[in-house]
């Protein structure tokens, strides 16, 4: 029964998004052009091949977070405005399950944009990213980290009238600091600490360490990157869960 509800929610989310494909196409175009344009400007008229692979991983993380969050929040706001949010809660399933379905469908679009945003520069600029088994765990944790943050935004979107501004603020900070412009190793220490508080940064760091420095999962653990990434993800999930529990009832009462 729960599986049916989850499937229904994911299917609905995908269909609603695919009903208006123009927005997704525009985002795909922007995502592919923006990264190379940024790197070209930062390289003062040239692409710096030593910086491209690491920053490309980071921009992939950024686009996953940016677009999954955008789809999720926009979907919720539209649902609340139209009145369908209340109807979608008249389910035999627990209230968090439809939210999980929304999160999964939003993440499909986030992941699609992130993949295209990474693949096109790889093809255009000939950027090579080695594939290693050790990178699977950090990549998965990076994904969960992004979803936890998206869930947090969604929990805020249930009641906050300024969620659009908050989302823009957070995603702008992530773009600036998660390593999409420059690798984290080039930041001053204080800025690197600040950057690691933001979602995707620790995941990107762990991923680049395995992909480009050849570190194993054990080495990531001993070096502290993996425990911090895990703690960060758990903290985000806990905050999102608490906010959802607090805001869900209020959202229904005002819907």
């Amino acid at each position, binding site marked *: *029964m729960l599986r*049916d*509800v989850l*499937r*229904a*929610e994911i*299917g*609905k989310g995908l*269909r*609603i998004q695919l*009903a*208006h494909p123009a927005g997704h196409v525009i985002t795909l175009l922007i995502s592919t052009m923006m990264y190379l344009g940024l790197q070209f400007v930062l390289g003062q008229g040239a692409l710096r091949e030593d910086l491209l692979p690491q920053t490309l991983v980071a921009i992939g993380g950024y686009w996953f977070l940016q677009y999954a969050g955008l789809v999720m929040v926009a979907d919720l706001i539209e649902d609340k405005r*139209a*009145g*369908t949010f*209340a*109807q*979608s*809660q*008249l*389910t*035999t*399933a*627990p209230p968090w399950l*439809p939210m999980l379905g929304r999160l999964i469908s939003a993440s499909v679009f986030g992941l699609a944009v992130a993949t295209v945003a990474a693949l096109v520069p790889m093809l255009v600029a000939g950027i090579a990213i080695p594939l290693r088994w050790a990178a699977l765990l950090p990549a998965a944790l990076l994904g969960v980290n992004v979803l936890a943050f998206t869930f947090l935004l969604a929990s805020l979107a249930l009641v906050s009238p300024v969620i659009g501004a908050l989302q823009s603020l957070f995603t702008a900070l992530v773009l600036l600091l998660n390593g999409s412009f420059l690798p984290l190793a080039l930041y001053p220490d204080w800025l690197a600490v600040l950057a690691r508080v933001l979602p995707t940064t620790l995941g990107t760091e762990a991923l680049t360490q395995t992909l480009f420095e050849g570190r194993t999962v054990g080495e990531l653990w001993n070096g502290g990157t993996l425990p911090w990434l895990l703690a960060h993800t758990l903290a985000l999930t806990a905050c999102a869960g608490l906010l959802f529990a607090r805001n869900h*009832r209020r959202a*229904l*009462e005002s*819907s």
Partner: protein
Amino acid sequence: MIEIEALTKVYGPARAPAVDEVSLYVPRGSVFGFLGPNGAGKTTTIKMLAGLITPDSGRVRLGGYDVARQRSAAMAQFGAVLEGSRNVYWSLSAWQNLMYFGRLKGLRKAQVAERAEDLLTDLGLWERRDDKVGGFSRGMQQKVAIAAALIAGPPIVLLDEPTLGLDVEATRTVKNWIVEQARELGTTILLTTHQLDVAQELCDRVAVMRQGRLVADLPTRELLARFRERDRYEIRVEGAAPPGFDAVARDGVTTISVRVSDPIEVYEVVERLRAHGAVIESLTQVQPGLEDVFVSLLNEPSHAA
């Protein structure tokens, strides 16, 4: 059946009750009208029934399941069309909406598909099942919303203003459907409406709310009988009315309104009319409509339910 016990909801720092100690019982297979002016607390009550608003005190049971304590089972007991909202997704087709809402109630895909076909056919939407609901007329959208509320075959349906904004034909379709659901399938229907003629036509029983409290809860006939104006009569006579009578003429027939303090006085009026040579066609005691009752109830300082 729907059971509501001392349901209360207060809002704001002033703790003003939006719904105040409301108790109701709606038996299986009946059509129950929930009436009241704007802000009376009808929608808040409906939302508490649907589990969307948590009451401050009191209890709601749907089909025997407590909405607060047995949420999942209670949710399977009803479908709802809520007022002032779209109820269904405009960017999805009628078919996709029904499939979604059916599975949201925990039904399997094949079960939902079978029922969706029946409902869309019954409501005359089968040919347009794959069209987006956003392109439908208001009446068709409301039909899809009603079908979505019914898709899981719930024993209870909550309808908040189901005919609001509909044209005559769509209103008739919805009214016929409500009667069919209750009479033939035994569905319990609770509806709110400002269209009192609709309530009078459909409802077995009506409750009237004012400022969060119930001011009446009676079978429709009994409520109308209670407010029957025992002192007012209408006498229809051929041609013009004799002088000294309060009359309205239309199509060659004149209707004379008479107010008496004792029913025996009616005979005296009839004798006076005959003395003037009037030919009496009919004599009837004035029957109030639900609208008259509603206005009377709302204007009374207080009225025991």
